[in-house]
């Protein structure tokens, strides 16, 4: 009988816990619905979805606090009179299913006007439809997969925008992969590349584009392979690369895997650089891979945030507040994405006599306002083309030098 009572207790506790969580997610529904007309300030919430724990969390936190700083600045400077902005950050753990749940939660919360995120292209795919149905703006500071804005046949020249509510402040892999191939072939004079990806939307897409462009430039593809995210042992892969005599390894994926691959590659005595995309452009990569990362390369969207005059205050604030995570890659883009939303809210209110329309209406009107966004952000000029892609097509190649990422080439790339 003792066992049965234990089971009953567990069941009761579990049910209790579940009920409490369910209550918890709703408690802020009541306060400040969008159409309050009093003189008191209206609260408008900007949702954030990014991986805040686990894989990719260093970059994910950079997004959360990038938005936080934008919101704090807007409140401090009273950018939109009568409105106080707030951030509601949800953790998607880099999982598409969790991202979709978060999107649903944000849409259901009628204080949330728009969302910034997610980090991963694969997660974005699961969220786009949810936001689109709710007419809610979603601006990703980091998604680079071309299909998100240009449809699945983009490479064949048939570009169709699948979701009118989805925007991004980062440029696409179509440009990033080509820029990387160009740098590897023409600047580094590498002739034979081994291409590996992690089978995810982002990684496989990027690696495919690199392979394509590198081949077209006249380079040789010495071999290809795919890995699973979460793997730790890459000895088989390393042996294959060694045997292929490639002089550069291109990896499409995140730093969680590439830091292990580069370490095991160099330990086996294969001294060729590993090159990747913005997914591995993180200080964590160097910290974890240590000396093995020396000479490795990564492309990233935009120009280095530290060289931007507009971003100086941003970086100072980020450091002063001791926010966790890594602002280097997408912090500036997250700030700009949030600012695009904030400025959009102002446009919507101005057109409505200085008041915020009812939330459903406000969300729909914000889509048009963001589409027409046109201002100078901290990471460059912010405006969107007919697909929702940023018109800022700057890219930078970084290389690990003396244990830190150093920008070696910046430029625009048009395919």
């Amino acid at each position, binding site marked *: 009988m*003792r*066992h049965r009572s*234990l*089971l009953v207790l567990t069941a009761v506790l579990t049910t209790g816990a579940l009920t409490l969580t369910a209550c918890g997610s709703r408690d802020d529904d009541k306060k400040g619905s969008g159409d309050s007309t009093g003189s008191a300030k209206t609260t408008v919430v900007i949702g954030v979805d990014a991986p805040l*724990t*686990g894989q990719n*969390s*260093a970059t994910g936190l950079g997004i959360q606090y990038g938005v936080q700083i934008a919101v704090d600045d807007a409140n401090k400077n009273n950018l939109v009179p009568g409105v106080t902005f707030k951030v509601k950050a949800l953790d998607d753990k880099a999982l598409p299913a969790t991202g979709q749940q978060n999107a649903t939660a944000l849409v259901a919360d009628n204080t949330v006007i728009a969302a910034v995120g997610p980090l991963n292209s694969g997660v974005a795919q699961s969220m786009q439809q949810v936001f689109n149905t709710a007419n809610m703006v979603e601006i990703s500071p980091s998604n680079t997969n071309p299909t998100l804005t240009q449809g699945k046949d983009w490479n064949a020249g048939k570009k169709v925008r699948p979701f009118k509510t989805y925007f991004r402040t980062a440029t696409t892999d179509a440009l990033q992969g080509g820029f990387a191939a160009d740098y590897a072939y023409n600047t580094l004079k590498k002739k034979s590349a081994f291409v*590996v990806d992690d*089978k995810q939307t982002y990684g496989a897409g990027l690696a495919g584009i690199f392979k394509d462009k590198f081949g077209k430039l006249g380079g040789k593809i010495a071999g*290809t*392979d*795919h*890995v*699973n995210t*979460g*793997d*730790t*042992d*890459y*000895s*088989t*892969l390393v*042996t*294959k690369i060694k*045997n292929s005599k490639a002089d550069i390894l291109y990896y499409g994926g995140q730093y*969680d895997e590439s*830091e*292990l691959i580069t*370490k*095991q590659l160099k*330990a*086996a*005595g294969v001294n060729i650089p590993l090159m990747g995309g913005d997914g591995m452009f993180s200080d*964590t990569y160097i*910290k*974890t891979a*240590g000396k093995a990362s020396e000479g490795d390369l990564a492309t990233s969207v935009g120009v280095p945030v530290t060289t931007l005059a507009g971003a100086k205050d941003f970086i100072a604030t980020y450091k002063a507040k001791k926010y966790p995570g890594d602002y280097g890659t997408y912090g500036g883009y997250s700030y700009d994405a949030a600012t695009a939303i904030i400025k959009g809210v102002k446009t919507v209110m101005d057109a409505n006599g200085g008041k915020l329309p009812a939330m459903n209406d406000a969300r729909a009107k914000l889509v048009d306002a963001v589409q027409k966004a046109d201002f100078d952000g901290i990471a460059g000029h912010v405006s969107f083309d007919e697909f929702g892609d940023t018109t800022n097509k700057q890219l930078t190649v970084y290389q690990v030098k003396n244990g830190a990422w150093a920008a070696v080439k910046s430029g625009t790339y048009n395919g």
Partner: protein
Amino acid sequence: MHTLPQQLANGLFIGSMYGLIAIGYTMVYGIVQLINFAHGEIYMTGAFGALAVWTNLPDGTSIWLALPLMLLGGAIVSVLIAIAAERFAYRPLRGAPRLAPLITAIGLSLALQQAIFLWYPGADNAKSFPQLPGGPYHVGSISIQSGDIFLVCAAVVCMIGLAAFVRTSRTGRAMQATAQDPDTAQLMGIDTNRIIVIAFAIGGFFAAVAGLASGLKYGQVKYDIGFQAGLKAFTAAVLGGIGNIYGAMLGGLVLGIAESCASAYVSNIPGMQQLGGGSWANVWAFVLLIVVLLVRPQGLLGERVADRA
């Protein structure tokens, strides 16, 4: 095919790791017929225990001097968690239907993973782990890292030690008796509770050795390494014949070599290009498991099923 020796060696190294972890599954299963799914996490906590010792040693300590201390630290953490798991999570459920402890094990696994994630400083990203100096060493066309040498030596020493312990010591024979028939063993004056605790403790120690070896080999540890390693080790234990300690080691080696050869060579077979490569390693590992279980349901070195009720 001239990479074959290197790929076999790669398989052997990763296989030794699977084998070391698999011992924990197989010992506990052999004695209480419980699949301790939290064992992968015990391996992970062992690695973190060793890392904690290293971080608290003064800077500049030689790695060779630190190694025994790290092993000790990892072993203490793993063994204590294994014993506590047995005492507080599994013993109260010993008479319960088999599903109850199984679910408990899964819950415990999640709890341990999240506990490390929350409370170990900086564990939300991969933590750097010290690596052994020297290497790579070259034997013919094979190149071997120092970490791999440690791993294989540790596996061999541990296996010999365990075999001697189970065969010759009084406690070892009591374990065999308990595995065959716990009730009769108890009637013969064996304290079966003590034997079960010892089985968990030995499993924990082996997991700590594997954890330390994995840290030294890969140069990093992460809070979620236990899940996949645990799954592979469980597969190895079943492949070799669950309940049999030699089977666990053999299963680990076979699994490791099969994985590395499959991901290296399947794509070379005409018409199979799509099914090769590193991402298919797990698929081939499980294909092997299914084939072995179809031909020999009791696993390679077979548990003597007739003894079980």
